[in-house]
Each structure stands twice: as C-alpha cells, then as structure tokens.
C-alpha cells in the first residue's frame, strides 16, 4: 500500500523513487505518518478520514469486478450493507468479534458467489442488469426481516470504544482499526491484481474470446472477481460498523449504489490509488454539495461523472499521467527549441517510461 499511496505525489520524481533506500524508506515513512496522523488530527478530521477509509475499501471491491475485470456491477453497496448487518447482529448477540469479522466477510462472499454463478452465465451486460436488483430488493428485504435487522429502525452496535489503558480516544482507535484492516485489504488486493489472477482478469476484460482461447474461462474468472468484490464489500461493511456504529435499510439504497459507482469511475477504474480517491470523493463531495444546496447533489454527481468520462476516462488517478503527456506534447510541439538536456525534461520523460509499470495492469 505504501508505495501506491505515494504514487501520485511522487510521480514527477520517480527516478528519485527508484533509489533502493527510498524504496525501503518510503513505506516506513508512510507507516509513521499513518500511526502519527490519528494522534494529531482533531476528532472531526479523524472521523472523516475513517469514513473515507470505509468507502475506499468498498470502491476497491467494486474496482476488482468492474475496473479490473470489466463487469459493470450496480450492487456493491448491497454487500456493504450485508456485511454491516451481519456485524451488527453478531455484536448485539455478543458473539466473539473475530467470528463476527469472519462472518461479515464470508456471508457476503457466499451471496455474491451465488448471484455471480447465475448472472455471469449471460454474457455482456447481464451482471449489470442483474446486480441493479440487489439494492432494490435488499432494502425491502432488510425491512421485512425485522427480527434480525431491526426493520426500518436499523441496528446500532457499539464495539469499538478505545480499550482502557491505551489512552486513546474512540475516534483515534477507530481510525487505527480502519487503517489496519483497510490497509491489509488494499495490500492483498494490490498483490492479487498484479499477479496471475490480475492478468487473467485483464484478459477477460479485454476480450473474452481471446481469454477462452488461452484456456482462461471468462465465466470462472468473472464469478471469482465478483465473489472477491463481494467479500471486500463485506469487509467494508464491517468497517462501516466500526466507524458509524449504526446501519439501516437506507445504507444500501439504490442511490448509494450509483454513487459508489460514480465514485469509482471518478477516482479511477483499475487503479489502487483511484480506489482511495474514489472513497474520498464518495465521502467529501456530498458533504460539500450539501453545504451548498442538498437538492443539487445528484445533479452535480451526474454532471461530474459525464465530464470525467469525456475529459479524463481514466479518472483522477490518471491525472498525473495525462498532465505529463500533455506537457510532453506541448513541448514536442515547440519543436527543437526544447533542449533534451534540461533537468526538467529528464524528470518528465523518466515518468513516462516508469509510470505505466506501476498502474497500468488493468489496461493490458
């Protein structure tokens, strides 16, 4: 996670980053920052950061199925809600917290597996057409199963008060939990999408026929990607309970599901950094637009999504690369006047050569 979080900031200086001591020190610095940050920030900032972490994990899950594997899913929020409900139910019944966490991962994963087994059978956009039903069925279902879900009232569960003796405030403890669990999920997912499975996902995304001619079953990998996305959604649901401590049917409404997708595309599809940016977008933008005019939120989100798709299809995560490309092009346009020996241009071309290696997996 460390190097990836750094990437946008340091993309202009990647030759610097390639030095071995920087590579080793980078994660360490990040770790120190992550440990120190909750202690120094005010409560409100900690809370916002924690919520960004929660939704960054949810967006990351969506990215696995949609960004990396190319299967549009409109149901990711359902798995967040499911994970949150499982957590809340387990906590209110005093189950062991580790067991609750495992269940909050497994139950959404199993449901996702069953949904994907059916939905992936139809090629093309069937997954989008089926998953759109998940939040729309999920909300009345949650209201109906009121014995387990508390109906429209929802469930609240407090289990993340800072333990005695640590001397931490609740918000700091919660943020640490989000960093720890969310960071682990990000690391694991990063390894997944950069490895064998990530390459298979990318081929399925690129061309299913080519994939099956290479012995990669599109069906199997689509189901796998969707199941992993559901599992990550469940983790984000657990984190949601860690931070928000309350869930209701409204958590998994259709509108939120769309917002999550909007956040993913704007953050950057098939990008780890993009997932974090997407989480930030999901949390921060409604806060901002609500401050201006609550009735404008949907309008602004739709308009922003279309603008991003027109101007920056790779999302915010691709902004540094797009800028470097633009700068190089304008420099090339000026012709031989730009001497290739100036220090500024070496950093520019160094980035262009280096950057694709780190973030381009999904475009293969």
């Amino acid at each position: 996670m460390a190097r990836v979080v750094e990437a946008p900031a340091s993309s202009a200086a990647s030759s610097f980053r390639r030095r071995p001591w920087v590579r080793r020190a980078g994660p360490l610095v990040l770790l120190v920052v992550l440990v120190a940050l909750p202690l120094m920030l005010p409560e409100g900032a900690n809370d916002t950061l924690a919520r960004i972490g929660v939704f960054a994990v949810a967006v990351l899950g969506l990215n696995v199925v949609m960004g990396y594997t190319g299967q549009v899913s409109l149901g990711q929020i359902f798995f967040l809600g499911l994970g949150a409900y499982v957590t809340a139910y387990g906590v209110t019944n005093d189950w062991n917290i580790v067991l609750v966490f495992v269940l909050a991962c497994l139950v959404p994963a199993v449901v996702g597996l069953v949904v994907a087994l059916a939905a992936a059978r139809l090629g093309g956009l069937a997954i989008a057409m089926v998953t759109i039903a998940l939040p729309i069925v999920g909300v009345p279902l949650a209201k109906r199963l009121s014995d387990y879900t508390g109906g429209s009232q929802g469930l609240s569960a407090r289990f993340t008060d800072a333990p005695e003796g640590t001397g931490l405030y609740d918000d700091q403890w919660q943020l640490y939990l989000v960093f720890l669990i969310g960071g682990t999920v990000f690391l694991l997912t990063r390894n997944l999408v950069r490895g064998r499975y990530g390459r298979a996902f990318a081929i399925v995304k690129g061309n299913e026929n080519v994939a099956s001619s290479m012995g990669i079953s599109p069906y199997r990998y689509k189901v796998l990607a969707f199941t992993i996305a559901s599992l990550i959604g469940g983790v984000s649901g657990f984190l949601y309970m860690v931070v928000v401590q309350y869930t209701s049917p409204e958590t998994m409404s259709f509108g939120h599901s769309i917002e999550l997708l909007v956040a993913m595309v704007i953050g950057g599809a098939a990008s780890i950094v993009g997932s974090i940016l997407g989480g930030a977008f999901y949390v921060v933008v409604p806060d901002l637009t609500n401050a201006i005019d609550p009735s404008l939120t949907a309008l602004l989100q739709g308009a922003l999504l279309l603008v991003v798709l027109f101007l920056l299809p790779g999302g915010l995560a691709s902004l540094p690369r797009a800028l470097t490309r633009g700068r190089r092009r304008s420099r090339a346009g000026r012709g031989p006047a730009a001497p290739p020996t100036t220090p500024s241009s070496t950093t520019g071309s160094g980035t262009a050569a280096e950057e694709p290696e780190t973030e381009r997996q999904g475009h293969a």
Partner: protein
Amino acid sequence: MDKFIQLVVDGLSTGSVYAALALAIVLVHQATGLINFAQGGLAVLAAYVAWWLTNQGVPLVLAILLSIVFSFALGALVERYLMRRFERGDPDTAVVVTIGLLTLITGVAGWLWTYNNQQFPSLFSLETVSLLGVSVSIRSIGTTLAIVVVMVLLQALFAGTKLGLALRAVAVNPQSAAFSGLPVGRLLMVGWGLAAALGAVAGALVAPQLTLTPGMLDNALVYALAAVILGGLTSPVGVVVAAWIIGVLENLAAVYVGFIGFDLKVAVPFILIFVVLIVRPQGLFGRKVVVRV
C-alpha cells in the same frame, strides 16, 4: 376467482408499462449494442414535462403528446451529443455513461421540481366496469390497450415503412448500412428518439399510480431489465410476453404468497431470472448469439 381475474388484469396493465420500457431498452440495444440505464430517467423527465404543462393549463392529452415529442428530440440529442462519442469504444464505458445520465436526469428533475411526490392526473377514470361478470378498473384496461396500440404502431413502422427497414438495417450491421448509403448517424438518432418516446408513453401512463418523483421508475427499470433478460435481448415479442408474465406473477405472488407480500414483490422477477438463467441462459425466446473470434 373474481379477485384472481382482477389481479391478472391489473398485472397485465403494470406489465404493459414494464413492456414499453423494456422495448425501449431493446430498441436501443439493437441499434447500438448497449443497455441504456437512463431509459427510465428519460421517461420520468417526460412525465415531469407533461405534468408541468398541465399545470400551465394545457389539456392532459395534449400535454402528454407534447412530452412525447420532447422525449423524441431529447433522445435524439442525447444520442448525437453524448452517446455518439462512446458508441464505438468500450461498451462498459458507454454503460457507465448512461448511468451518469440517469444520475444527472434524476438530479435535474429533483432540482427543478423537488423530490416531493407530485400528483399526476390520470388519463383514464378510476371507475371499474363489469366485464363478463368480473369488475376490472378502466385504468388497467386503458393502460394495457394504449401500450398494445403503441406496440402495433411500432411494429408497423418497423415492418412496413422504408424508415423501419433502414432502422433494421442499421441494427443488423451498421457498416454495411453505411456502405449502402444509409445515414447511419441520423438513423441512430431516430432509434434513440423512438425509444425515448416509447418511454414517455410508459411514464405518462404509470405516473398517476406511482405519483411523480424523480426516482419513480427505478423499480420499473429493474422489472424492465428483468423482462429483457427473460425475453432475450434479441426478441421484442419475447420481451413483451416476459413483461406481462412478470406483471401478472408479481401481482399474484404479492397476494397469494404470504412471505412475499406487497413490499417484497420486486423480488419476484429476480427469482424468475435466477431460475431462467440457470435453466435457459439465452432467455425464454432469445437466440444463442455465436461470436466469431
């Protein structure tokens, strides 16, 4: 038995609305190969326009006709200036564009006319008539008939006119159509316009029942998509039949299956989809599409 027949007739009428929306989706899919998630949103916007016109003193029938014309123009413009750019590219991106469009339209409707429910005047009276000894509501019969008439007109357009032939040619193979001198771009605009107009009919017919809100057709979109999956993307007749089956079944399930009830009847098409996808993945009436590498 009396109640049963009423339920079936009501189911057919809601099923007709889903059918109109589903047909609009199939129309766009055949022309451009993508699923337009904004189809419901466009229909809601049309219904708002009709509602706004009636508030300005325009008679209801005229207002609905005007909103249909408005939808046709809007659909054509959306195709030309928004979708055209993404049609040749990655279909997933194009789908995300339609989702963005849905969000944008919902936002515009909510911003202009608030998110509160608005009363939309009904085209048909709410009385019931006695038909073969069973009382059924005029609205249900009227809605069903109106949509059947629209479908017959559409079928006549596609089967009997030169424009319809050209539209079908573009749907089958845009490149060959262009080589034969057809204005593919303009025909795509017509296709989108027709789809949006069809949605507008559905919106105007269903708005009195649901009351007008920006998210009014979110559920109907799910039903329509279910009908599209069940009927098969390649078969307009299949889609309509599937929509009717869904409409009737969900009505019956809501009343006769205790656990489902009215709040969970939206799950009925979902369960149906599961069964069908596992037994017959190409849909009830669809053909298996074979793609050459």
